[in-house]
């Protein structure tokens, strides 16, 4: 019985197998009876492949598969028509020979997406040509197109929300923070690649150190290298009844070892003659104690429209020479001239005790400044040592007038008083920075020495019959040395020591001078996990402040801890947390107790107490990026809280305002959060950006002897889209909505604003761009009042190989006023700014290359 059962089971299983397995064999040939190799032979049911094989060099195939029900036997090859045989019955083994008919290949193509993105570790390389739009002329135009990169209205470049720390051209840093000179003058077509250097370390020997910096390196095409080329530009136009002009010339040369940019521009309209000289790293700022105390008068800057009459110009000579693979010398000589004037009306409401005080004024500030600057830099940047010496000499000669008309009341057009105000200020800065760093095995030694002289021989304010004088001298010295020991690949310790000795003197109606001597010791340690995903750093800063000023001796030891935590999920996403406790103290200006007039109706007097502030600040940052899908997310959150030993106090009496500091503790807290998402669709030249942010903060101050705790909170949402539906059309739209609240003393003031910006560009023929842009704003001025403004502009640009012609029309609707409101802790300011009228400008930018032929 047992034997019978086994035999039965065996028979049953064999029968089942015979029933299910099917084998098809055969040969595939073409019309010439030649075997066809690499033909895909497969069975398919309901669109799903079940089994497959390919033919060998002799065109033979054998396909086995499980038979369940009818299947289609398919023969496919790129160069032949597809052949299908329907197998209805299960025959176990069967033969199917097939003859294929040749066909012309008609594959559905997929075009190369962004043929220009390379990711090599921390370096992201964009091939700029692939991203350029038809109307793009300069490198700056091209940068605006790149995913993850933003270029602000002043030309500042940010990558994933972080400002760049260095701007290189072919690996050389010629311009420092004045990189507008390159982005505005190098033609986009001369740039082959834009490299984003993430986690950038400017010192080669620091390659293994932590850095969150981002730098940009511009790679030029061959035609931009080894021969000089120039970009003269000329323009003429008309605004209201005034003739406009613009003229400039820029010459450039880039070789492997030498680079230079020489440029001069001048104009009496817009920022044509000053834009290139904007220093994004702040190294061109010229400051002094006297100019800080008696600051210049300006006024509200409306967020839209041209509101200033400007005349500006500059001359710039920049060169960098690479002496060998590590050493280089750089020289920058710049001179900037700026003159501008504008006018606006303000209504200021000061919080009063039971009764608010309102003042209405019309202000017409005018400023003229000359700013010469010389910078020399020597750098030796090797993998085992770093030496650098940087000398900067800069000066600023400034003249400022600010006539202010006041009115009898808010609604009266009758001027009651015309107040004259005049300011002249001179400031000189000379600074030398020396750095030396050496690596010996796992140890690094560094020495840094900074010496800076800030001198302001004269600042004079004349306000009606009042005159204020100030002068100041500061000699700021800071010397530090550090030792770093890399115990193992995970652990390292740093032991830096810093000694600061500053002599400061400031004189207004009162003269104060003295020394600030502060030794600091800030040992820190860093740890990385073996897989490098986790990074933790901790520092404890020990400072001992010694202030020895006239009639004031102040000493304060302080301990400031800080910690950083970074977690890298993958090469695409990263989380970073920073938290630090800081103690900051005031300066010599806190001792100027004698009241000083800073405007015709404002008096400022310091408390005579050295201010002290203690603050905890925590930042959380998350970044996610998929470069090949041009998708980025950046999210940030921060929290600050702290206290000060002084309280700012404001007293308004009639139209006079007195500001002072009281010896009373005050507290502050604030929180911010923002999110930015960007996505680019390269085949249709589309870039989408969405941003949102929120803030909350509280502060304390005294107004009219009343302690005021104010709360500010609000949010902003914005979206931006650039879309190319057709090759001859481009649409760009931006929308922004913001709402802000200020709450104090039981009242809440809310302000909202809606902004819409649109660009519509047409390319009717090659090289011609016709563009129309509009800017619409609706802002809330008070609880019941909103005000709208619309601006319309147009331009036409025609490009030839040698020249770019551009006709620009601005403010076609002749909108002459723009109003907006802002709140501070205790006051409300409503501005009504005067805008420039209809403007027309025709410009021509030539492109000169030595040896180039049309």
């Amino acid at each position, binding site marked *: 019985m047992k034997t019978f059962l086994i035999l039965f089971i065996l028979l049953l299983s064999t029968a089942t197998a015979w029933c299910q397995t099917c084998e098809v064999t055969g040969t595939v040939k073409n019309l010439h009876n030649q075997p066809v190799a690499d033909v895909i032979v497969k069975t398919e049911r309901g669109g799903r492949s079940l089994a497959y094989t390919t033919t060998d060099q002799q065109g033979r195939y054998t396909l086995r598969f499980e038979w369940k029900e009818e299947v289609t036997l398919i023969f496919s090859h*790129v160069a032949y028509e597809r052949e299908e045989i329907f197998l209805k019955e299960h025959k176990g083994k069967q033969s199917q020979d097939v003859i294929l008919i040749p066909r012309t290949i008609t594959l559905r193509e997929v075009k*190369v*997406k962004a043929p220009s993105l390379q990711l090599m570790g921390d370096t992201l390389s964009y091939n700029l040509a692939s991203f350029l739009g038809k109307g793009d002329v300069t490198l700056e135009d091209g940068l605006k197109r790149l995913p993850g990169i933003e270029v602000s209205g002043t030309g500042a470049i940010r990558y994933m929300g972080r400002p760049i720390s260095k701007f290189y051209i072919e690996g050389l840093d010629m311009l420092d923070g004045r990189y507008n000179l390159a982005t505005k003058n190098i033609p986009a077509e001369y740039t082959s690649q834009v490299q984003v*250097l993430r986690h950038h370390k*400017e010192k080669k020997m620091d390659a293994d150190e932590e850095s969150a910096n981002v730098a940009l*390196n511009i790679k030029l095409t061959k035609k931009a290298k080894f021969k000089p080329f120039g970009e003269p530009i000329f323009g003429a136009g008309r605004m209201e009844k005034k003739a406009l002009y613009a003229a400039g010339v820029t010459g450039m040369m880039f070789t492997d070892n030498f680079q230079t940019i020489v440029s001069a521009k001048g104009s009496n309209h817009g920022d044509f003659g000053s834009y290139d000289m904007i220093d994004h790293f702040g190294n061109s700022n010229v400051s002094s104690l006297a100019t800080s105390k008696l600051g210049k008068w300006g006024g509200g800057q409306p967020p839209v429209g041209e509101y200033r009459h400007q005349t500006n110009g500059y001359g710039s000579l920049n060169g960098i020479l690479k002496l060998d693979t590590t050493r280089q010398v750089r020289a920058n000589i710049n001179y900037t001239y700026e003159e501008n004037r504008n006018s606006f009306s303000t209504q200021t409401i000061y919080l009063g005790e039971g009764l608010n005080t309102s003042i209405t004024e019309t202000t017409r500030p005018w400023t003229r400044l000359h700013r010469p600057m010389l910078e020399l830099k020597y750098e030796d940047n090797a993998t085992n040592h770093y030496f650098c010496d940087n000398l900067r000499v800069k000066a600023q000669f400034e003249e400022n007038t600010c006539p202010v008309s006041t009115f009898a009341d808010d609604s009266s057009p009758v001027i009651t008083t015309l107040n004259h105000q005049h300011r002249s200020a001179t400031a000189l800065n000379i600074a030398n920075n020396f750095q030396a760093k050496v690596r010996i095995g796992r140890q690094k030694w560094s020495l840094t020495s900074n010496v800076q002289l800030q001198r302001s021989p004269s600042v004079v304010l004349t306000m009606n019959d009042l005159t204020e004088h100030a002068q100041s001298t500061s000699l700021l010295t800071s010397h530090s040395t550090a030792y770093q020991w890399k115990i193992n690949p995970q652990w390292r310790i740093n032991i830096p020591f810093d000694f600061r000795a500053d002599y400061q003197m400031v004189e207004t109606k009162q003269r104060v001078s003295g020394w600030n001597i502060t030794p600091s010791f800030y040992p820190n340690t860093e740890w*990385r996990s073996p897989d490098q995903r986790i990074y933790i750093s901790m520092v404890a800063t020990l400072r001992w402040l010694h202030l020895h000023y006239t009639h004031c001796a102040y000493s304060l030891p302080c301990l400031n801890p800080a910690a950083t935590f970074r977690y890298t999920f*993958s090469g695409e996403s990263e989380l970073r947390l920073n938290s630090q406790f800081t103690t900051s103290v005031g300066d010599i200006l806190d001792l100027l107790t004698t009241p000083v007039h800073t405007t015709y109706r404002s008096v400022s007097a310091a408390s005579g107490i050295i201010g002290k502030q203690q603050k905890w600040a925590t930042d959380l940052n998350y970044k996610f990026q998929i470069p090949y899908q041009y998708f980025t997310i950046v999210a940030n959150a921060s929290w600050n809280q702290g206290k000060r030993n002084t309280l700012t106090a404001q007293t308004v009496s009639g139209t006079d305002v007195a500001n002072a500091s009281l010896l009373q503790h005050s507290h502050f807290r604030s929180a911010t959060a923002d999110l930015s998402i960007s996505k680019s669709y390269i085949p249709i030249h589309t870039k989408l950006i969405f941003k949102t942010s929120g803030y909350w903060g509280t502060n304390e101050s005294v107004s009219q002897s009343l302690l005021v705790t104010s709360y500010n909170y609000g949010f902003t949402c914005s979206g931006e889209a650039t879309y190319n539906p057709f090759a001859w059309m481009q649409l760009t739209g931006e929308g922004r909505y913001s709402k802000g609240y200020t709450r104090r003393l039981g009242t809440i003031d809310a302000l909202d604003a809606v902004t819409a910006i649109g660009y519509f560009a047409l390319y009717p023929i090659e090289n011609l761009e016709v563009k129309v842009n509009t800017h619409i704003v609706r802002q809330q001025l008070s609880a019941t009042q909103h005000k709208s403004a619309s601006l319309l502009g147009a331009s036409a640009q025609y490009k030839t190989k040698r020249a770019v012609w551009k006709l620009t029309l601005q403010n076609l609707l002749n909108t002459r006023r723009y109003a907006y409101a802002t709140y501070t802790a205790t006051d409300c300011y409503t501005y009504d700014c005067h805008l420039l009228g209809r403007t027309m400008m025709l410009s021509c930018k030539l492109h000169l290359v030595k040896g180039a032929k049309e």
Partner: protein
Amino acid sequence: MKRLFLSLLTGMAALCGFSQTKDSVDVSQFTIVYDYACNTRMGKTGEAITDTVRLAVQVGTKVNRMMEYYWYDYFIHHHRQEETLHGLWSHCVNMMPECVYTNLPEGQMTTREGIVPKPYEITEPMNTIRWALKDDTATIATYPCQKAVGEFGGRTWTVFYTDEVPSTAGPWKLHGCPGLIVKADDSEGIHHFELNALVTEHYPITYTPKPDHVKMPHDKYVKFRNGLFCNPRFVQDPHYWLSAGDNIQVQSYMWGPTDWVEYYNGIYSPHKDNVRYYQPLELK
């Protein structure tokens, strides 16, 4: 004399033309562009990074050739000679072969790559990968695709193929699916290939014999290469196996503000400052 000179010139031109024809082993029917991404770590800092390289695969009637897209673009679209291109090439950084021929010689695959100080040409049998077809489907790069899983070179690969393009081609050495491979990932999440583009381009697939290339059995070569590059000393000194007596000519190029590119006897070698941990595509 002038006639003789002209005849000589014509002869030389004909020779050049002959040599080009001689080197052509097939004509491409279409070209596939793949993006390859490799997740690894920096040798110096250990920081997690992703390197990418764009690859072009010329698909002929018999032979396929894969190379870096930028080289392909340079040679094919800009009609440049196949000269040595110095620079920081992505395929070098990724330690990807210079080129891979499938079905050349017939039934075999040929790979060219360099290990300082010598170039190598390795031939291996074109063993068909046994792909297990799965029911999962997806649309990738606009093509409807089906999933398949197979083993190759000691790694498990998950691929998506499209039968809309009836070709067994794929990126690198991956091939043999019942349709073009559109996307491929290894099971460890280290290597990733994805189709970027497909264009119909008919250009010669050339193969110039290079006698200076060292030939070695495939299994032995993989063991030799992985032994060198996977050694912990590699990230400390990327050519630690060289000795002082080796006759090697080193050429260095500056690439970017802090990156160096070095060629040893014309073969790319990572600089110790930017060497990555080697992630072999083949484990055996």
